[in-house]
């Protein structure tokens, strides 16, 4: 069993690398590939902070994908930028616009997208946690009750930024959007993303004092007499 584990962990990386090749312009995946060299870390850093000084940084990054993505790019990206919220569009999406926000502007951005009369993205479909190669992503799927708009928002937290024994933190939106409440609890439960200031952040699906976050890649299952013929377990 133990030999299997590393090989499984390697696979996804390979796949990601393959995925990156056809669309060489992807900034995100490119980062994932060359995360170790020091130069590659710089653009990643530049994209992250929401400080006004770095507001110019997303633009050069966003230029690169333009040849790949058709001209419709960035309706919501534009909208958010007009309101002073730095947003960066990802080229990963097929049809749906996907933007990356930094955690500290998330609440403001979602408030805006939900309530402004122009966009009205007022149906929060789901919040999913994703354990990517070197980030934990909190992914928000926004639809609208009244029009056909769709938007995917990603908040990426680099694994290297998360302190040992700590959980990646994202601000909670459950305080002003009730739909997020259970989704955030679930993501906390299964993926171990801590939603700061959540009104009631407890495990929702697993028992209350479950150990570990089952959907993370490094999760090892518990073995006891209820569950002992398990190929994925710790043995």
């Amino acid at each position, binding site marked *: 069993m133990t030999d299997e584990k590393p090989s499984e962990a390697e696979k*996804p990386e390979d796949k990601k690398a393959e995925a990156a090749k056809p669309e060489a312009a992807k900034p995100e995946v490119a980062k994932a590939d060359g995360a170790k060299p020091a130069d590659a870390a710089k653009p990643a850093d530049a994209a992250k902070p929401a400080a006004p000084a770095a507001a110019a940084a997303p633009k050069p990054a966003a230029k690169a994908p333009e040849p790949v993505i058709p001209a419709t790019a960035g309706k919501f990206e534009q909208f958010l930028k007009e309101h002073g919220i730095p947003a960066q569009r990802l080229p990963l999406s097929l049809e749906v616009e996907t933007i990356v926000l930094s955690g500290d502007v998330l609440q403001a951005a979602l408030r805006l997208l939900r309530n402004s009369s122009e966009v009205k993205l007022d149906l929060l479909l789901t919040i999913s946690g*994703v354990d990517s190669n070197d980030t934990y992503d909190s992914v928000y799927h926004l639809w609208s009750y009244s029009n*056909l708009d769709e938007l995917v928002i990603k908040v990426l937290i680099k694994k290297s930024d998360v302190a040992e024994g700590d959980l990646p933190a994202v601000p909670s939106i459950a305080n002003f959007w009730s*739909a997020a409440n*259970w989704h955030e609890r*679930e993501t906390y439960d299964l993926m171990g993303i801590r939603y700061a200031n959540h009104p009631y952040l407890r495990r929702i*699906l697993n*028992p209350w004092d479950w150990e570990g976050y089952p959907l993370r890649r490094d999760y090892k299952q518990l073995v006891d007499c209820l569950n002992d013929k398990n190929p994925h377990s710790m043995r």
Partner: protein
Amino acid sequence: MATEIQEIDLKTDEMIINMGPQHPATHGVLRLLLTLDGETVKHVEPVLGHLHRAQEWQGQNRTWFQYQALIDRVDYLSGMFTSWAMARSCEQIDGTVVPPRAEYLRVMVSEMNRITSHLLWLGTYLIDLGAMFGFPFYPFREREKLFDLFEEIAGQRMMFNYIRIGGVLRDPKPEWFDKLKRFLDEFPDRIDEYETIVTQNPIFLKRTKGVGILTQAVAKDYGVTGPCIRSSGIPLDLRRTKPYSVYPELKFDVITFDKEGDTWDRYMARILEMRQSIEIIRQCIDKLPSGDIMGKKQMAGMRIKAGEGFAAVESPRGILGCYVISGGGEKALRFRWRNPSFCNLSVLHELLKGCPLSDIMAIFGSIDVILPDVDR
């Protein structure tokens, strides 16, 4: 949530009652922690996860081909829809073109599935309201007929695994359509039969009229979808508002009510939806083109291109979405379900606040929650 209770100035002693997880009317294994003030519900805290079978984890650890068979269990009353949601999101990533005949067959079987789902809801809802072992015989009679039809095309009564990535599994024989037509001819009469018993039944009216009113603001806040929100006057039906598959070619209207819906409206919405489904299936039979039924080779080592996709279908309970991240390999990197029951259930504590104890089951039943769909 929990803090809200403490803010209220309480005069009487509160009583905390545990309902479930084993309770005949919780449709499985939901547990409700009720805080009661006398007969009035002060607060409800649903405790989920008694049926958490790790479906998402399974999605990451099974090959695409294997997981196709598993997802019927996500929402076992409408397995066609879960299969369809997964198939659509994978096709979206993969760029698979689904043959038109397969699309029509998909619409047909899933509308049939919608009927079976609503029929079961009808039966169990009446049990919830106290019509033990009398009424439920009627809807189950028709369900069995549909199950026989499903069995002929899929080989299973409930876990169909019929809609596959790229198409559908089998082409029905011509006799199958005759049987289906015969069923469709008699089914409207059967619905009339249910309605004669239930719709204007004074006891039923008393239990449901004006009970559990779901206002639009609350519904939107909690992301409620499906018949629940349509009966509250928001015309959100993916089949019309964001049409997918061949729904644009079919004629039907979104069923909504003008006012903000109560429990009875939610009942009525489902009855009307069953009638609507009959019409949709009829149109499909008429328009069914000939041709291929599968656009992707079904084999154990099937692969999906790298990328991510989100696709949703309108299941009997609301928007059922499937968010897939594929790395181009045999397994998915991440599989995420957007389950309508999970979101609809989260509104329960708003609906139950202040209602008498006896209404809990009437309101809870009317949301139509399926527990594996909540817990996965």
